[in-house]
Structure formats: structure tokens, C-alpha cells
């Protein structure tokens, strides 16, 4: 009986771990303009649970999903400070 409970707990833990891992992603080999420094740098970005968890300039962090951005430029998402997006259907 105890053995079965331990087995069930192990299965639940393994399932949860897999679920959390699937929310992870690494973007590797990118030229990063981080919005802080004026110059870019080469690096790898680990995203975990919606947040930037790690930025590495050397080894590639482990993640479930890997996206190779070699030769690509990475920036923060752009923020438009003066729009009417979402409230105007037609420009009149």
C-alpha cells in the first residue's frame, strides 16, 4: 500500500516537473540589444515562467525548448507610447 502511494507521488512529481519544464525556453546564439547598454552582445536567454531567468554569454542554459537565433538580432518588445490602438475602429 505504502509502495503504491510512493509510486503515485513520484508520478505526480514527474508530471509536474515535465509541465514546468515545458514552460521554459532558451534563445541561443543571439545578438542582443538589451535596451540598457548602447552596444549589443552575443548571448543566450533563458525564459522561465514568463520571466527572463538567466542571460549567459558563455554556456547555453538548459531548457525544454531551444531556439537558435544565430545571425538574428534580439531586442525587447517595442512599446509604442502614443497610440489609439484598441479604441478606434477607423481613422477619421
Amino acid at each position, binding site marked *: 500500500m505504502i509502495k503504491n502511494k510512493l509510486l503515485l507521488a513520484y508520478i505526480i512529481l514527474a508530471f509536474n516537473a515535465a509541465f514546468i519544464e515545458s514552460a521554459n525556453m532558451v534563445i541561443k546564439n543571439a545578438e542582443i540589444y538589451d*535596451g*540598457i547598454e548602447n552596444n549589443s552582445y552575443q548571448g543566450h536567454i533563458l525564459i522561465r515562467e514568463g520571466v*527572463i531567468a538567466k542571460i549567459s554569454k558563455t554556456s547555453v542554459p538548459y531548457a525544454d525548448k531551444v*531556439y537558435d537565433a544565430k545571425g*538574428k538580432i534580439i*531586442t525587447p*518588445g517595442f512599446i*509604442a507610447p502614443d497610440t489609439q*490602438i484598441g479604441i478606434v475602429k477607423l481613422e477619421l
Partner: protein
Amino acid sequence: MSVTRDDESSIYNIGFSIHDAFNPNSVLIPWNRANGITSAITLPRNTSSPIGGLGSFFILDSKLDISSEADVAMIGRLGGSGSSSRSESLALIDDILSFALSLDKKNMSTDASIDEIIDDSSIASYMDFKPRDVKALYRLFNDDLPIIIKSHRASDILKLIELKNTYDLNLIIMGAQEASLVVDKIAESKIPLIVNPINNIPNSFDELASNINMTSMLEKAGITLMFNVSRSHNYHLIRQGAGVAVANGMSYGGAIKALTSNVAETFNLKNRGSIKVGNIADIVVWEDDPLEPSSMPEKVIINGIDTDLTTRSTRLRDRYIRDLEKPNTYRN
């Protein structure tokens, strides 16, 4: 076709908020997202008052469960459009700010007590303020709410600097096409600017000193810059503007900041606008130079989620390149 104008109000002015009218299913959102815009500040059209209306911050992920920050900035204007009197506007702005400053010592616990404050003030009564207008004004000085004033003429910019100093306003100037004539004064006042780097042709008598090198001069003076475009559906063209700014002397890294972290810092958008550990993952992977309009994102990640880059335009394109053996009517 019947449409509403959700960007204006005939009842409220200063406290008019567009936040609750936001439509996350707007077709403009996927279009701008697929061009690398992951969030935006949506502003109301100016009301009759020279100060009026509150803008909100929205995440452009097209989810009905909207991610947003309501009422992050107030909007106003000074100068040259229509038949409005500049001298009247300046006096009105001064009177409204003076009223706002006096609210600190008033009882604002209920709408009834705010109605009494309005009744006791000649300017608030004349402007027909409602309690939500007064609450918004209270935030100007008690929450350090940013106020964006649209203005172009150099002499108006100097007047706005005076107002900022008098009232200790968290002021942002938008437009500022004659900023190059008063660079040192703006730098000294630490007022951030929202400018359109492409605008080098005067659209009014307030903009006669417009020039294409302005962003470079402003950056060298240490002024915080952000970019906008002429009112349009294509807000993503701010990156084209950034490219034009770089072509005319602005630094590349500075232009990227103008599109990202400068906006986040100016409007106090926590944990966004830059790639650093602990920040929310709003990240774009570009196939090539992001300041080149023909270069498109390969991947747009918002709140850590890889978003769909399908737009109405791509669906329309695909309709005409698939199932070519069928007549047009039978293609989906």
C-alpha cells in the same frame, strides 16, 4: 457602418479614461504585434480642456483577459491647432494646476465631499468638473502621475518648462518639433520627449524649425527620447522613424532605448522594456535589422509566450496562394 468613438467623451474631460473600452480583438493588434510592437500606451483624443483624459498601458497579446495598467498618464495640449487661444490655454492650464495643487489639503473621501470642493472653486465649477475629474487631478501631485502635453513651438516649450518648475510636474512633451531651438533648457529640465523623427516638414506655423537632425541633437544633450508616428494604424512605423533618426546621427543603441526602456522608465512600467534577469519576457527575434521596415520579426514573445504572428493581411495573402485549382469563392 455603425461605430463608436471610444477615444472621446462629451461629459468628462480630465478624468476621462479609455481603459474599459479597450478591444483586445482589434485587428490592429496582430498587425502591430507582427511588426514587433508588444505593448502600447493608448491615449484618448483631446477633450475641450487643454488638460484632459487619461491614457492606459496595454499588452498586445490579443487575449480577452486583458493585461494592462489603467490610467498611467494624463494628456493635454498647448498651441497651434484650430481657433483655440494660446494665451487662454496657458491661463487655464495654470488655473487647473493651481486647483489640483490645493486638493492635497481637501477632504476627498466621498463624491459628495468632492462635489463641495468643485462648488467652492470657480475654475472647477466653470469647467463643470465631475468627481472623477478631480480624482484624476489629485493624482497629478499625489501619485506623481505623468502628464503628456502636446506642443511644438519653442516658446511654448519654454512656458511648459516654467510650469514644470512651478508645479514640480512629472511632465513629458509630445511633438516638440522646435525642440532643437531650446535643447539646453529641455536638457536642464530633464523633460522626456516623444518625437516623430521623420517629421522634418512643418505641418503648422508652430513647427517652422522642424529638422531631420533634431533627434541626434537631443540625444547628444542627454534628453530622454521616445518615438511616435503621425496618427495612423501603423504604430510599428516608430521603428522606421528610429532608423531615420540613426541615419541622421542618433546612436543605434539610443534608438533601441527610445523604442523600449525609455518608455518603460518614463511611464513607470515595472519589469518591462529591457532584457535583464527578472524582467517579464517581452522579446522579439528579428530576421535582420529591426530599424529597417522590410525586416520582420521571426518570433514575438510576450509575457514569456511565443505569440501567433498571423494577421488579417497574411490570411488574405494565403487565401490567394492556396487551393489555386479551385475558383476564388471556394478558397478559405
